[in-house]
């Protein structure tokens, strides 16, 4: 990796940061209070993002995206991470798995998603299958030339705003020496398809307004044209396209941590107790030193993982390390930022209590910390036969 960013990369980050500061920050408190994003506001954010050419900037230029590298996209996500996810959701970054669209699927899903006309959500998790994706019960069976879907998905982010959902479903089972193993197929399911219902999920402590939904499939009939990728090829699709989304989580954690840190630094330099700025007490100043050190470490770890992807190098372990470290760093940094603020840190006069709550989910979604540790350790030990 070449350390340091190019002028364009700096400008991309600066522009997104400013966008978030001016277009997202002012609305955060209201979204937090109501748990809703007014649709006019959502449309306004979407329109501005489209006008700036940032919408779907993670997609290649030949399908209408901006063709950003993984590193550049990580910078965009990092700055978006400063803002409320309920709102930055409309700074659209469709799932890059849509690149697996073939033929007329491109016109129905890929291109409209890139143009901001249709929004997507991705549904893997079920009440009985979280970390253990293969344990899924949601299944599809053949009926004539069609598929009949049954089952439940939960925790599906953004499904309330989605025009279609990318759903992973079991389509059979293979006998292996280790026991039966599910075959998985990916489907594109339009909102409003008979047999597909959507309902409000749980109230989460993290990211109010960025809702998670429950999806129910009850004899939902889908033609072959709704299969994304190959039949029984769900794992291939997942591995090819979902690999990189953990970088998004990592880099958003870095952005949010920097925002929390800025509050802490400022407060330490202003607040006086015992006749001096609290920043003069080592008990406070050393916390700041640890915070910034960890933030920088997570930042470089994440950008280095993204850079490996750009270079076509294996990056599975590096991405897992970045996701693990950055999400755990964010928990520590937001906690410390509150500590530096004393009692005021807990009050919703400051956004710190929100950052602290929001931080909690980052260690869970897109693979829990334990699953990341599993990935990292397997990559190290498997080649050694352990």
């Amino acid at each position, binding site marked *: 990796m070449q350390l340091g960013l*190019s*002028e*364009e990369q*700096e400008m991309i980050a600066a522009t997104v940061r400013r966008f978030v500061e001016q277009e997202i920050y002012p609305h955060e408190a209201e979204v937090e209070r109501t748990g809703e994003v007014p649709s006019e506001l959502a449309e306004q954010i979407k329109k501005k993002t489209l006008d*700036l*050419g940032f919408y779907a900037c993670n997609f290649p230029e030949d399908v209408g995206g901006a063709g950003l590298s993984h590193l550049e996209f990580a910078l965009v996500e990092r700055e978006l991470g400063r803002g409320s996810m309920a709102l930055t959701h409309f700074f659209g970054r469709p799932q890059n798995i849509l690149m697996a669209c073939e033929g007329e699927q491109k016109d129905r899903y890929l291109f409209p998603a890139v143009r901001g006309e249709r929004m997507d959500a991705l549904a893997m998790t079920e009440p009985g299958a979280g970390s253990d994706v293969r344990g899924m019960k949601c299944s599809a069976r053949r009926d004539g030339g069609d598929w009949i879907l049954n089952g439940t998905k939960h925790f599906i982010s953004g499904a309330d705003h989605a025009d279609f959902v990318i759903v992973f479903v079991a389509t059979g089972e293979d006998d292996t020496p280790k026991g039966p193993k599910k075959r998985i197929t990916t489907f594109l399911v339009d909102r409003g398809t008979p047999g597909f219902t959507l309902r409000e999920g749980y109230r989460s402590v993290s990211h109010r307004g960025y809702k998670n939904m429950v999806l129910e499939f009850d004899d939902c009939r889908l033609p072959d044209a709704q299969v994304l990728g190959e039949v029984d090829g769900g794992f291939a699709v997942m591995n090819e396209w979902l690999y990189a989304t953990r970088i998004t989580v990592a880099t958003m954690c870095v952005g949010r941590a920097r925002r929390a840190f800025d509050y802490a630094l400022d407060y330490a330099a202003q607040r006086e107790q015992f006749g001096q700025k609290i920043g003069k007490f080592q008990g406070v100043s050393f916390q700041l030193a640890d915070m910034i050190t960890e933030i920088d470490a997570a930042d470089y770890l994440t950008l280095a993982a993204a850079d490996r992807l750009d270079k076509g190098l294996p990056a599975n372990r590096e991405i897992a390390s970045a996701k693990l470290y950055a999400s755990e760093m964010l928990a520590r940094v937001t906690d410390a930022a509150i500590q530096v603020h004393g009692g005021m840190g807990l009050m919703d006069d400051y956004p710190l209590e929100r950052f602290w709550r929001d931080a909690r989910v980052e260690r869970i979604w897109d693979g829990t910390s334990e699953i990341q540790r599993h990935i990292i350790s397997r990559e190290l030990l498997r080649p050694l036969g352990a």
Partner: protein
Amino acid sequence: MKVLVPVKRVIDYNVKVRVKADGSGVDLANVKMSMNPFDEIAVEEAIRLKEAGKADEVVAVSIGVKQAQETLRTALAMGADRAILVVAADDVNTDIEPLAVAKILAKIVEEEQPGLVIAGKQAIDNDMNATGQMLSALLGWSQGTFASKLDIDGDHALITREVDGGLQTIKVTMPTIVTVDLRLNEPRYASLPNIMKAKKKPLDEKTAEDYGVDVTPRLEIVKTTEPETRKAGEIVGSVDELVAKLKEAGAV
């Protein structure tokens, strides 16, 4: 018509400014620097003129340290066509004074022959509010300062000025120098395609000597101090109480 837009690299408006311990100025080490916000408005106006077909080229100029190149790239990413960097100082703490800036700009105007110069009404670091006016005097051009509206119509321009107590509209002969106020427009964000294009746009690098202008400071800064801290407010229980307090303070 070509439009020339001078832009200055200044301390970012979001940064909490700290005065150096020796009072010689404000601390610029490791602080975020950005384009002077009034200059952003000037760039925006120039680009809008181009989009409206009233200008065909927007040239941004910055005079200062080499790092002002970043400020020019921002102008290019917003939509300026090319840029001229005039390196006039090595030390980021050296502020090039308005007269020197105006003299260099006058030379650039001679070379470039723009039909219009749009500048910020002042830079937020030293608040001089002088460069545009001095340039007007040096060139013998008309000027419209504190513009909140600008209409170009052939060989003249209508400029609405924000003056104490209201708005004043003046008609000036082109070519002219306009200095812009806050309410003229809302500057755009750089679009992603323009950010990617900015690097490929020409950026000429010159020095103050190239224009034969002596930039040695003529002003001496005696002392810089923090503004007095705002006193805490007081919450009153009723309008009557408020009126009583104001009377007490001699405010009503």
